[in-house]
Each structure stands twice: as structure tokens, then as C-alpha cells.
């Protein structure tokens, strides 16, 4: 069973979206580790300790914070895929795509998130 770490990048505590996505991933067969609000160091440490196949980031804030987390993950776990969701402006969706991170703004279908998660895990070297 593929393992996915789900974390919030910011300190904005709106949780309904991230819980819905985590629930959908679990129902789709993923083993979900819900980390909550976490810093770069905490996310990287948890990804290593939990030996996850995928990281899902709930993005609510500035792209620079997300970029720092992605850099931190890639420095330690270069093959670990990342996907993102949240209140993501159209230009941020494009920027994340350039970084190889598929992202899902409001109005995205949970089924599409699950598909992207499956594809990401399929592409990772662990599978």
C-alpha cells in the first residue's frame, strides 16, 4: 500500500479541504499520514521517518514557502514526488507545474487528485 504524507505549509488553520483530500486518498487505498501544520524540517523528517511514497502539500500561503519545502524535500529525497492543493492562484499553479508539482486549486475534483496521486506514485522509483 502506497504511503502518503499530507501536511499544511502555513499557519492558517482552515482544515476542511485538507481533511477531505486526506479522506479521499485513504478511501482510494493510500495509507495517509496526516501531519498538520509543519515546517520544512518537520516535513522532511516525517517523510524520511515514515518512508512515504508521496507528499501532499496543502498550500495556503506564499509560493516562496512552498518552494523552500520542495527544495528541502528534493535535497534529501530527490525521487519523492510532491503534489499540492489549496487556495492556489492561477500563476502559482503554473509555477508549481514548472517545478514538477501538479496542483489542485479550489473546485478540483477529488477523483482527479486521487488520479494524480496514483500517477505520481507509479512514476516514483519506489514502485
Amino acid at each position: 500500500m502506497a504511503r502518503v504524507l499530507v501536511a499544511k505549509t502555513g499557519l492558517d488553520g482552515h482544515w476542511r479541504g485538507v481533511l477531505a483530500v486526506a479522506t479521499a486518498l485513504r478511501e482510494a487505498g493510500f495509507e495517509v499520514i496526516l501531519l498538520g501544520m509543519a515546517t520544512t524540517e518537520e516535513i522532511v523528517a516525517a517523510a524520511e521517518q515514515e518512508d512515504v511514497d508521496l507528499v501532499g502539500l496543502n498550500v495556503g500561503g506564499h509560493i516562496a514557502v512552498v518552494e523552500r519545502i520542495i527544495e528541502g524535500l528534493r535535497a534529501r529525497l530527490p525521487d519523492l514526488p510532491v503534489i499540492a492543493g489549496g487556495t492556489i492562484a492561477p500563476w502559482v499553479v503554473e509555477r508549481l507545474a514548472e517545478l514538477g508539482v501538479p496542483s489542485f486549486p479550489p473546485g478540483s475534483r477529488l477523483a482527479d487528485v486521487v488520479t494524480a496521486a496514483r500517477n505520481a506514485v507509479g512514476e516514483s522509483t519506489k514502485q
Partner: protein
Amino acid sequence: MEKSASGIGLKGVYGPDDVRCGTGSEQPGHPPFTRGAYEEMYRSQPWRIFQLSGFGNPEDEGARIRFLLDHGETGFIMEHDRNIADHLYDVDHREVVARREDVGLVGAVLLSVDDFDTVLQGIALDEVYAHPGGGVVQHGPFALASYWTVALERGYQLQQLAGTGQSDFFLTYLGCITKQQIPPSVGLRLNCDIIEFCEAHLPRWVPVSIAGYNGADSGLDSVQELGAVFANSIEYLDEMQRRGTVPLERVAQRVGGINLRVGLDLFEDAAKLRAARRIWSRLLRERYGITDTRASKLRIHSLTAGSSMRYQQPLNNIVRGTIMALAGVLGGTQSLGVSGYDEAISIPSEHAHQMSIRVQQILQNECNLTEVSDPLGGSYYVEALTEALDERATTFTSEILEQGGFVSALDSGWLHGVAAENQLTELRDIESGAKRIVGVNVATEDDSPFVVDGFQGSSDAWERGMERITALRAERDSHRTGDALKALDLACRSNGNVMPPMMDAVASRATVGEIGGVFRAAFGDWNVPIRF
């Protein structure tokens, strides 16, 4: 069978047999206030145009507030940075430093009373109606004390000030759960301290405002929103009855200013405001024996559902905002906030904010909506909805009381479970097409020439905050600040009211993070009960 947004079965047409009591002999401004809080309603006073605003540096927030007031806003709500305010962290707290670029994106960075003073430059504090922030419970005492201290330092008397606090349990413990937060039982204590302090010093101030909005936008339906709001008010009334420090009629008047969400089920949402007033009037009479009309007249602030604003085809949201606003007006709201059309992307741009005001001005000036009170009164359908909401919400209040009361239902995670289940059902219904949304799963082609990029605000809010806090710590009388924080700590650990020492701490230039440090040491953290 077709259903309303909260699950009330709907017939194809309604008639006299569908209404049990109706409101035939009722008048607005008289118990049970179903038809309105005031006799003349909008003929005597239009609803207050009351928008959330704030981002970046204190100067940015002040400029936006003055922009909104210049464009017709008749009260203002200060929005604070969530990293700083909701958590009571200073800008140099490690959790904030780790996310420094986020700082200022969704609210202003207000670290001390001096920053409040900067925001409020050019505003005559005896002439405005203010909501200084403090939506999150642990931030309420600091935000209120800071606003009041600015006024005192400018030579105003506290009794001259008009406005509202919030300190909302729905936001704090259900909708927007922070990394660190004082437990709900402590929140109840602080809120009752604020009620006592306002009773003693601020006759024109609403001390706390129960915001069902935050429950509804976290997943509660209209029935559950109403039921939970009154379960919350019962906590305040019971605790203040136990304290015995303020006459209960006065407490009821103080907490009888609430906040509800108005959504897109036009008639149900209008009926919700009618039902809310009726339930409050009956609750006070039956549970507390209060019949004083100043107390039993519920005043309502309405806010359009942010979660109904869509990312796709964002200009459509102007229409959605208008319809939701209309629900509040038809229901007899006292004040109204309309979400920005860019709500699903960012905090409002200046233009989106202006549009939220223009929507309200069109409703006030062009639609003849202000001349007749309770225009839906006597509609078989609306009266039936009002009765159904009243009955079902009252049942939901009883269910919460069976859980041990509102605070227990939050502490146990029971209410979170209800909200999360609704939320997932709604997402699935949108995905399956059972719930149709234009631009999302209906009419998805978009030829709009307008691009809505999302408002970014200022990029130096964290750096500027670091500069201010460094200077403040160097310049203030640190002995005075230290003594004031010690006195606050003592009050927190005793049964005393925290507000007088909070006023002293704020006046001594204690920072938001230092006050948070006192709270964390004295009260500890809430154990968040969200199950997964």
C-alpha cells in the same frame, strides 16, 4: 423529494395548510421578533456595510480601511495576520520565521498597541463603528485592549466607543484551528471576562459575537448553524449566571449580537434570520425567564458564504454575492459583509472590495428594499421554512446539550465530525453533478476577457515587523512591561478578570507574542480533537 440546503423536504407549492402558526398578528420590533428586530427596520436605519479588511503592514491596513470608508463602508473590521494574531506569536517566533513570506498575506501584522495606532491614523474613534479583530478567542483580549488603549491615549473615554469584539468559538475551535490555542474552557472564561469589562466600561460595545458563519462555512448546515449558535449562547449565559457579577438581562443584551452565514438557498437563508430571532426570544423567556425586549431583540450581522465563491469564472461571484446579500436583507440583517469576487483566490483586491460595497449600495438605493419590513412575511413557503428551521435547530441545540454542552461538543470533536461529514458529502455531490455549480460542473467554458490573478499585498511585512519589534523592545520601559506581564500572569492563574491587567500590559507596550507567552504558560494548549 427535493430538499433545501439544510435538508428540509420541499413541496412544489405551499399553501395555508403548510403553516402552523405563521406571523399574522406579529409586528416587527416586538416579541418574538420573527419579523424584525426594529419596528421601522431599514426606514429608520439602513443595514451597516461592514467588510473584513486588512493585509501587510499597519499602514497598508489603515489605507485600505480609509479607502473602504471613503467608498461607503459604514463600519470597519480589522483583519490580522494569522501567523501572528491567531497564534499570539511575535514575528521572530520560530514558527513564523519558518514561513516569513506568508506573513501579511491575509491580514495585517499588528504586534503592539503602536501598530494599532498606525492603522487608525486619521480615523475619529468616537464617530466610527469598529471591529478591531480578535476573531480567534485567545487574540480577543489583546485586540480589544489595544484598540481601547489607542482611544484612551488619544483622549477619548471608553464609554464613547462603539463597536464589537468577536472571540468566536466557531472560528477558533471548529473552522480555523491553530497550531497552539488555549483550551475552550479557558476561552469561555476570557470571553466572560470581556463581557464583565464591557458592562463596567463600554456601554456601546458588543463584547463577544457568536459567529455561526464560521461553523456554517466549516460544514454545518443552516439547521446545525442555528442550533449550535444558541448552544454557544447558553454557555455564556449559564457561566455568567454562575458568576452572578452582571444582571442576566444585561448579559443577554450583550451576547444578543450574533453573526450568521447567508448562502445561496435564498429563501432558506432569509428564513434562517427570522427563525434565529424567534428562537432567541423564546430561549431567553423559557430558560432564563428574561422578557426584557432590549435583551430578547436579537441583532444579526450577516456575511455571504465565502465557500460559495468559486475559483472558476470568478466574476460570476459578483452575482452570487448579490443573491446571498439579498437573503440577508430579506431576512432583516443589521449589518452585512459581501465576500469579494476573488474570494477563492486571495483576500480581496481593492476593486473586489469596492464591488462588495457597490453590491450593497445598489441593494440599498435602487431596489426599493428598504421601505417595507419583513417583505417575505406571510409567504406560505417562507413561513413554513421558518417554522421548520426553528423546530429542527431547537432539536439540534438539545443534541449538543446532550453532548454536555457546546464546549464539550467542541472538546470531544463531536461537532467536527458533523461538519466534516457534511463537507465530504457536498464535495461528492459536486463531483457527481448532484449539486450543480456554474463554471465548476455546469457551463464550464469560459470566454471572459478578465483575468483575476489574486491579490498579493505587500512583500515586506515580515521584515518591517522585525524592525518595529526590535525598536520597540529597545525603546520601551522594560521594567514596566515586565511588571505588567507578571500582573497579567497572576490574573490568569487566579480567578480575577484578565482585562484590567491586559489593558496595563498593552499600555506598557507588551507585544502580542509576549502576551501569548503568558497565556501558554498559564493555560497550556488545547488538544485538538479532529479525528482522521
